[in-house]
């Protein structure tokens, strides 16, 4: 934890003006996973509407995207607003991964009934499934290395490079959401815009930094 913080602290400039009181990780995981338990309970008790499977699948996917966005928002919040939530980034990222895992399990088990013929056809032929699966595959190494041991083992530089994969995985998730719907309902577009803004921010910040360096 301490190492991750010190590594991450290097890619930010300027001191944080504001930090929330610390929340223990287990509490964050419990609160973060509460929606999943709640939806599953609603689904089992037939309170998720006419097509409970679809609803559950979509809600879990949307929550995965929300946590991915939250994790991506940590750096801009610190750099530009002086709000330091860095210590929660690992939990947010892992929560996102758990929701991706639940979303995928719902698709594999409840939707497709583990019919691997149909699942493989989906992955090969359906672009949105291909893209969703690719996003998931990219998140796996990040989830596996989201611990102090891996940071020590890989070294800060390599670890940070590895975790840049998130900049590919999150837009894939947003694209997956846009492609799964029939027309152009607003919410997938809203999520995609937020993701684009968070990635665009990083590009802008980099350009600004390199510009500053040249002028010094």
């Amino acid at each position, binding site marked *: 934890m301490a190492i991750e913080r010190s590594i991450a602290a290097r890619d930010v400039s300027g001191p944080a003006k504001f930090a929330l009181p610390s929340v223990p990780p287990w509490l964050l995981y419990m609160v973060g996973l509460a929606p999943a338990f709640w939806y599953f309970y609603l*689904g*089992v008790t*037939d309170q*998720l*509407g*006419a*097509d*409970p*499977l*679809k609803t*559950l699948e979509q809600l879990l996917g949307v929550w995965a995207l929300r946590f991915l966005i939250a994790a991506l928002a940590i750096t801009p919040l610190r750099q530009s607003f002086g709000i330091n939530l860095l210590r929660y980034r690992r939990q947010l990222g892992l929560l996102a991964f758990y929701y991706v895992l639940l979303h995928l399990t719902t698709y594999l088990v*409840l*939707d*497709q*009934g583990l019919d691997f013929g*149909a699942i493989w*056809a*989906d992955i090969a*032929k*359906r*672009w*949105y499934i291909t893209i969703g699966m690719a996003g998931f595959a990219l998140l796996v190494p990040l989830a596996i290395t989201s611990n102090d041991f891996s940071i020590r083992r890989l070294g800060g530089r390599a670890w940070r490079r590895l975790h840049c994969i998130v900049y590919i995985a999150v837009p894939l998730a947003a694209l997956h959401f846009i*492609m*799964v719907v*029939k*027309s*152009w*309902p*607003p919410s997938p577009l809203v999520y995609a815009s937020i993701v684009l803004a968070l990635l665009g921010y990083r590009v802008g910040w980099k350009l600004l930094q390199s510009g500053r360096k040249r002028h010094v």
Partner: protein
Amino acid sequence: MLIRSPSDIQPSEITPKDVYFNRRKFIALAAALALGAGAAGRARAEALSFAKGPFSTDEAPTSREDITNYNNFYEFGVDKADPAANAHTLTLKPWSVKIDGLVARPADYALQDIVKPVALEERIYRLRCVEGWSMVIPWVGFPLADLLKRVEPLGSAKFVAFETLLRPAEMPGQRSLIPVLDWPYVEGLRLDEAMHPLTILAVGLYGETLPNQNGAPLRLVVPWKYGFKSIKSIVRISLVAEQPPTSWNRQNAGEYGFYSNVNPQVDHPRWSQASERRIGGGLFARRRPTLMFNGYGEQVAGLYAGMDLQKFY
């Protein structure tokens, strides 16, 4: 293959005997359709009188709750729950249907004049949505052919074009800044498809007048095609010589063809059509295989003899 799923609706509830045999109610039906129902145009379900029609499946109907709360009717919003929440604002009276084009008797027909001469029938049909879910719906209606014969199509008529009401003041989806579809919604059938005895105009479901969110007061039902072909709240029917434009085809021609027959072998470009989820089965229900022509192949396969259904999807 018929898979029965448990349902708390008894067949006796679908066709109540008292409605069936009560002549006064039959008169009330005509009055209800003629005058509209409820105050200030807000529709209240009215009991209909009808006989049992042919082609009904013996599969358990989907609950009324699900049929009336899980709708695609983009004029009232893109969420499945939007139509049930928003469609109450729709004024159903007066309602007329303009029938024009290649017919001997073009006119604006008042709804009651369309419905009065016909004998209503119950048709319990499967409905398969292009999105991969399905229902079983006890419609009340009459063959579209009955109406078309009355207006006398000319020999040159080859297609039938349909149009939904355009009334942004009452249809919030038509007011949205980014229109999902070009309004008004339009659909079309080949004349032989339109004249097929399976094709009906529905005025009710579960023995009562249609709820607004299900396409009140008059909608098409073509059970062997994906649900979006069954256009709702119809205000115009035109007999034409050329294949008419259809809304989803205009929105995305690569994904939605003119024919849009239910076909498990022709996938939607983004998802498989080989199987479907039957609404009402709960979280753990298994998918069921989708049937060719939604199980109506015996009746309609002949309409497409010699056609490449991969090409004419």
